[in-house]
């Protein structure tokens, strides 16, 4: 049948065009949906809600531009939540590309939306240090061995919120926002388990299934991909009405996401139908000799 041949030999650029349109059209028409937090995401929210004011939370931005669209919405939502709960936030990163993103996050969320919170007292930017899991291993026993200064060159003992902090066990929660290795897995293996420190994470969707075995005993909770970000944003909106009418990038991206998923599923179905029709035609052709 001709139509089978047409579908079988379709130029891949036609598929590319459909994918592009499936993303662009919902973006332009701003198609959004409501979200509901799944238990694995809600665990992180509830953990932060349960911590007393002034608790120490380490936020490690372990990602780069390649995973920015997935991870940054969850970073923003988390930082807003931590500030609403008046936590002491310690920013750092295991990825070199995370340092620029930390500066960006502090500028665009921390400073802009919470101007009354003070640097050195309510939040501090420790920046990037090389070493991956080797770095975490050092921080577990002595933080100031590697972080003798913050990212601005200020001696850490001169920073109020760093004075009483000796090592990672001084934190009430470690949150890793990660796009790969080093990331959440390394924080669980080299800090969470040996130091008995609660670890939560936000990961790319590619990595999320691999981290499920750590939940809930070794990982408090996990936000997986843009869906996880959207769920956390929805939980934040539910509990903090101030965010009700604010633009939530995670929720906004779910519209194009949904349409693109449907398009890909349709392509897979068409591909399979083509395959089975062609196979049965071949069998019929063989039967007739």
């Amino acid at each position, binding site marked *: 049948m001709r139509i089978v041949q047409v579908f079988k030999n*379709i130029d891949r650029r036609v*598929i*590319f065009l*459909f*994918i592009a349109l499936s993303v662009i059209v919902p973006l332009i028409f701003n198609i959004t*949906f*409501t*979200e*509901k937090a799944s*238990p*694995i995401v809600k665990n992180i929210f509830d953990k932060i809600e349960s911590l007393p004011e002034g608790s120490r939370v380490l936020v490690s931005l372990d990602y*780069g*531009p*390649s*995973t*920015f*669209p997935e991870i940054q919405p969850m970073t923003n939502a988390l930082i807003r939540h931590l500030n609403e709960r008046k936590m002491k936030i310690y920013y750092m990163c295991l990825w*070199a*590309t995370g*340092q*620029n993103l*930390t*500066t*960006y996050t502090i500028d665009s969320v921390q400073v802009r939306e919470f101007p009354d919170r003070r640097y050195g007292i309510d939040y501090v*930017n420790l*920046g990037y240090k*090389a*070493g*991956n899991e*080797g*770095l975490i*291993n*050092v921080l577990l*026993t*002595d933080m100031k*061995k*590697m972080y003798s200064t913050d*990212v*601005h*060159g200020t001696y850490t003992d001169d920073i109020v919120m760093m004075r009483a902090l000796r090592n990672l066990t001084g934190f009430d929660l470690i949150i890793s926002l990660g796009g790969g290795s080093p990331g959440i897995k390394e924080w669980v293996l080299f800090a969470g388990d*040996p130091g008995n420190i609660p670890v939560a994470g936000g990961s790319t969707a590619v990595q999320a*299934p*691999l981290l*499920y*075995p750590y939940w809930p005993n070794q990982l408090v909770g996990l936000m997986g*991909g843009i*869906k996880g970000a959207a769920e956390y944003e929805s939980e934040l909106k539910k509990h903090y009405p101030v965010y009700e009418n604010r633009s939530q990038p995670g929720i906004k991206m*779910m519209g194009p*996401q*949904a349409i*693109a*998923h*449907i398009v*890909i*599923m349709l*392509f*897979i179905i068409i*591909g*399979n139908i083509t*395959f089975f029709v062609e196979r049965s035609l071949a069998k019929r052709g063989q039967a007739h000799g």
Partner: protein
Amino acid sequence: MKRQLPVLITGIVGAVLVVSVFIPHAPFGRLGEDFSVFFDIIAVFAFILGGGNLLRVHGDKIYRRAKGWQFSIVTVLGFIITLIAGAFKIGNVNGIRGDVTAPGSLFTNIYDFIFTPLQATMFSILAFFVASASYRAFRAKNKEATILLITAFIVLLGRTPIGNYATAWLPSWLSFFHVPNLANWIMAIPNLAGQRAIMIGISLGVVSMSLRVILGIERGYIGSEGGKG
């Protein structure tokens, strides 16, 4: 010296780090910490090595006028300009003493408007290739492939709001089959079972490989003259 000393270094360093977990007191605890710190510092030299190697390879290509040498000029220029912008903190509000990633600096602009678009777009075009490859190769040819396909569809639907609307009409006693609930169950039970089995297998592999490296049985990292002992 060429082969024995590296094996000795690996063995001593590895053994000290393992022992320091069980005996955190001096000298093992202190040594373990110091080795980790040295590791972190040597990692930076690895970045410098990467940069040096890049200059050597592309410089050689330009010198020999090899195929595509014109693009090598782009690589080398991009490298040198970014290095100078960052090394001298050009355009930083606080000059040489400030944070190298301070907003408005040349280095940050290079990151925001050159590095980020390039890296982000390179990864984003994978979406097109995933779609194209799925269309051509994803076939329910046998039982196993069908299970994979059905699971993928449930997760794809369940992780979007459309899955929610598609089965929202189900009564509460059938809520298990509500697509988002089904997707969450798949992630938390069969996916977890499979991932855990893989994780246990990998961990045993890592442990045995680490032991082989520390004991000097595995010497592949030494290079062509090395290999297994």
